[in-house]
């Protein structure tokens, strides 16, 4: 059933589905068989996409325009009510502001710290592997364990962080109580686990040809100049990728904020620790107000889309891809 001609007939450079007139019929039927097999292989994803992504998105949109009653599983259309409520509920805008503030604080710090660590590792010679392992361990630590530890480390009265700060004469803040220090606390926890981004940068740095530095050095470029003119352009693709991914993650932050501040429903937490993801979760699965939660989700989606588009637009001017001419 198979022969050499049929396999070579399906070359990638020809648009599928269009056959040359002189092509043997067997070859085109082979190509169709290949296409069918291809669709079968990707069919799990197609089914999942249609049901759990596309279908779910459509359903979510419908729900966002409805008052959904979980008890009876009925969705009564209410028009734009849920969306109007987004702007009336001060906690929506408050949590959105908190989340954006956190993202603006966290993402640049993550990029800078990850880059600094990667540069450091790249210069540590044969010991690099050991330190990479050490730096990666926090990334393996479950968020609950991290939160349990940092809850005590960041305690304003007895925590080790403030004890350490006192050693150098600094009176540490009430990290987890003072509204102004809530977000920096979460940033600290995030930075502890920054090694994922560090590994991405490390791989990108390893791909920069050493000869470029030698050439730049011959041209009289110093360390800083080499970093700015060789390293940054050569790894700009990874920098951009990390920025986009970290931003999307920061806008959806949930685990740390929930565990540190909103896990215990009997305790009051500062409003400044209410992140968008947490409030959305509460609305959906504590209040079971699915209509409102869905409207919140779509607002978040639009915001993420806009921010990503802006990042892509800006990056087009700076990012260098290998093979680009």
């Amino acid at each position, binding site marked *: 059933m198979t022969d050499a001609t049929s396999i070579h007939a*399906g070359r990638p450079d020809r648009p599928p589905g269009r056959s040359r007139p002189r092509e043997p019929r067997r070859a085109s039927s082979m190509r169709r068989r290949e296409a069918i097999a291809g669709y079968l292989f990707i069919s799990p994803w197609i089914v999942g996409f249609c049901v759990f992504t596309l279908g779910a998105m459509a359903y979510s949109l419908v729900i966002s325009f409805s008052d959904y009653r979980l008890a009876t599983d009925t969705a009564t259309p209410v028009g734009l009510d849920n969306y109007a409520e987004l702007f009336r509920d001060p906690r929506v805008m408050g949590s959105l502001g908190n989340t954006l503030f956190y993202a603006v604080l966290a993402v640049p710090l993550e990029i800078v710290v990850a880059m600094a660590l990667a540069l450091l590792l790249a210069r540590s010679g044969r010991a690099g592997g050991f330190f990479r392992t050490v730096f990666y361990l926090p990334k393996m630590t479950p968020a609950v364990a991290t939160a349990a530890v940092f809850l005590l480390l960041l305690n304003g009265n007895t925590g080790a962080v403030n004890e350490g700060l006192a050693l150098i004469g600094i009176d540490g803040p009430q990290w987890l109580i003072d509204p102004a220090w809530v977000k920096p606390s979460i940033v600290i926890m995030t930075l502890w686990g920054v090694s994922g981004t560090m590994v991405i940068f490390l791989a990108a740095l390893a791909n920069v040809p050493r000869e470029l530095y030698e050439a730049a050095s011959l041209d009289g470029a110093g360390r800083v100049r080499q970093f700015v003119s060789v390293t940054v352009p050569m790894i700009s693709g990874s920098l951009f990728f990390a920025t986009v991914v970290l931003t999307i993650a920061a806008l959806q932050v949930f685990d740390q904020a929930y565990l540190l501040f909103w896990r215990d429903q009997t305790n009051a937490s500062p409003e400044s620790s209410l992140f968008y993801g947490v409030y959305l979760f509460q609305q959906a699965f504590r209040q079971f107000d699915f209509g409102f939660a869905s409207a919140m989700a779509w607002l*978040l989606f639009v915001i993420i889309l806009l921010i990503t588009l802006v990042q892509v637009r800006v990056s087009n001017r700076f990012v260098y891809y290998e093979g680009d001419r």
Partner: protein
Amino acid sequence: MAVLPPEAAERLVQPVAAEVEASARRPAAGRRRPRTTVGRVVVWALLGVCTLAFLYPFAWLLAASLKPRSQVFDNLLWPRDVQWSNYAEVWDRLPLAAWMVNSVAIALLAALLVTLSSSLVAFGFAYFRFPGRSFLFGLVLATMMLPGAVTMVPQYLIWKQLDLIGTWVPLFGMNLFGSAFYIFLQRQFFRGLPRELFEAARLDGVGYLGLFRHIAMPLAVPSFVIVFLFEFQASWNNLQSALIYLNSGGVDGYTVPLGLSYAMTSFSPTNGGQGDYQLVMVAALLVTLPMLLLFAFGQRYFIEGVSTQARKG
């Protein structure tokens, strides 16, 4: 930020880049050791400070887990009194064993399913030519951008419709259908395999499924391990799904993250609870250990999996 305009930097870079293209990428290319003694001292000092910062919470956790209740908050890295019994007591005071069994079972199922389904889909995208392939693959990548919040509620309603709320199924069921990042990752691996291998096998009469099972799978074992380990870790850490689907059930049915979150609340000294925070520390340490073991055995797979993202742009 760049002093040179990008085009100028590119002009600087291009000729050299072309030249070294052939010399391939030496793994050592990024390793540039400091030339001066001062430079070396600075690098090692910084490495020391960072190591301290990254390891301190682990040391603190280990110490706290061995302290009696009254000393948990004293921040000493060497406990004044070592209380080994914490490690025995925790199993009585918390259903930690049940949580771990639940989490291991769910993580195994989740990881196995997603590895299998994602690799099938990835092979479909990597090997076969069919109309709409690049469009569909673009859709795969696009789904990575979609915030989970958008599909969270409808997915809950789907599982509710199927009467599966409170079971483990919603925590791994979606993995039957592949996951975008893993599909991307495995496709990269499959595309690295020489096509002649597959064509030769086809000539020998091997069917399409045979190509996957007998050629692609054995050759792409590292990518399977990477996906398995990543998903195992992700599942072990998954708090939100457990909160949504298991929270209303009994405590024994919790997963590790949900259970530990519950323990943090019920043992919290400020909550009128027992305040036995040293036991929470033991539990935190015990649920972290499996992940550290996973990393000890699979470090290169984790690093390689994360590094793949650097080549994505």
